[in-house]
């Protein structure tokens, strides 16, 4: 079983478009959406949810007013500024339990919080594991790990050849969770100054993992000079650019229809996405 993760550094470069197209073209795959903050892959793959699991995040402190004698120690030890005037601001509580451990009156309880949901679904292209993180919740990294674990179990049980993951933007904790255990990372960038800057940071992060990295330039023809600069940067770094997707209004139309672009038309973007799917599978031939 091989794991392919689609990342970008910068948001909005086309991760989900690429992932959905791979899902449609690469047979024999379990699909996952690890952008648990703002999960969009479902809009193109139309999963039918089969199982739903609750995701419990960090516990949060809760002060029992009847027992509290307002000594103020909890407020003093809390490094997250989550206790003010003997009340817990659950948005800032990181569940560290220091207040709970230090309270002489045992007036603080740690309570479970429902931080989101995880789903196992069926799509036309294979099973899909996805999740939704509750509003204003943390722990997206842990939720990503759970999504990946479930996907691996399904892939092993069902003898699937690939796991294809739509990753989150950035370089922080959910990205690190998405990268761990991946065999191939496809990094989607765009020909802009910001696209290149963010590509550099995510490539540096990927160097810490045993993962084969390939780059895809989306909408490469919108700024050809910038695309050349990115190509040169990748050559200098010894990283192969395996896809160049032209700007194509059919992509937006496909998204509006809720289908992967490769199933909507055989326009120039769809053709480029087919090349990417082929090249990606070729990476596993040897």
């Amino acid at each position, binding site marked *: 079983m091989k794991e392919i993760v689609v990342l970008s550094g910068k948001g909005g470069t086309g991760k989900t478009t690429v992932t959905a197209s791979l899902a449609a073209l690469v047979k024999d795959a379990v699909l996952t959406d690890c952008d648990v903050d*703002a999960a969009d892959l479902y809009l193109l793959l139309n999963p039918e949810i089969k199982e739903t699991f609750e995701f419990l995040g960090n516990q949060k402190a809760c002060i029992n007013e009847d027992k509290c004698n307002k000594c103020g120690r909890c407020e003093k030890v809390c490094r997250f500024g989550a206790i003010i005037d003997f009340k817990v601001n659950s948005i800032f509580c990181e569940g560290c339990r220091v207040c709970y451990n230090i309270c002489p009156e045992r007036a603080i309880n740690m309570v479970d919080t429902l931080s989101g949901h995880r789903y196992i679904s069926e799509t036309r292209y294979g099973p899909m594991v996805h999740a939704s993180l509750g509003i204003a919740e943390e722990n997206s990294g842990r939720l990503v790990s759970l999504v990946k674990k479930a996907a691996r179990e399904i892939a092993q049980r069902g003898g699937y050849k690939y796991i294809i993951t739509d990753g989150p933007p950035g370089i922080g904790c959910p990205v690190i969770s998405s990268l761990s255990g991946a065999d191939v990372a496809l990094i989607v960038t765009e020909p802009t100054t910001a696209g290149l800057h963010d590509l550099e940071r995510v490539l540096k992060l990927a160097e810490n993992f045993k993962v084969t990295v390939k780059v895809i330039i989306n909408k490469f023809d919108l700024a050809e000079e910038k695309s050349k600069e990115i190509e040169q940067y990748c050559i200098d770094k010894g990283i192969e650019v395996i896809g160049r997707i032209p700007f194509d209004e059919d992509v937006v139309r496909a998204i509006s229809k809720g289908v992967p672009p490769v199933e909507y038309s055989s326009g120039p973007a769809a053709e480029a996405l087919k090349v990417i799917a082929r090249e990606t599978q070729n990476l596993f031939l040897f």
Partner: protein
Amino acid sequence: MIVAIASGKGGTGKTTVAVNLAFSLKDKIPVALLDCDVEEPNAHLFLMPEFTEKELVTLPVPAIDQEKCTLCGICTKVCAYHALAQVGKKILVFEELCHGCGGCSLLCPSKAITEIHKEIGFVEQGIAKGIEFIQGTLSIGSVLAPPVIKKVKSQISKDKLVIIDSPPGTSCSMINAIYGADYCVLVTEPTPFGLNDLKLAVETVRELGIPFGIVINRAGEGDHIIEKYLQEQSIPLLMKIPFDRRYAACYAEGRLLVEEFSEIRELFYNLWNAIERQVEA
């Protein structure tokens, strides 16, 4: 006044709105721009600040004095993040799991735990085209963005208009960036992805009780799907930036739209008027 520029979806144009708004207003009122997208800070690419100060952001992580340690096991028990574990006759620290809460050092009965400062990022300050510019950068491989964001926000000057460029999403990083703002501008794009993630962002800012309005970037064909939602929810539409290949090219090169297109300059003045009206109301 603090105005946060946020979005659920990445790549919708948060930075475009933040830098162009800051530049449009700098000759009228004192402006500070805080780049809180510490995983991928981009505002500097457009405003080219000259940094004069740099401060490290560190996390206090435990260091065990094995001589004093009696292997009582309290530290491993109290750590909510499993960052401490006993292996053989030694307590090991897994720094990347540590949140720096200080519980272990506080509760160790043998005083065997001290804290060392692990670098997780840095904050730079300077001036960019007449704008006070503060930026946070998360070290590559570090997982904890919120402490870096908090450090950036600790530099807020009350006598200026503070514009915050937020990270995407709706989880802890985004919350930390927009918390305490007087107004939030949510930037979206007219696609089903844009709408889906806008709805999440709207729920988030409502949860925080921050007044907000919407900017549609790359406006065009699909605007109706966003506008329909805004009407149903009685959410104000503050501005539309039309899709135009010339604008895309300008952005791609890291240049400011308001410096090159007078019609965009007009749009940003109107945006500011709309924000002021909303905040007063």
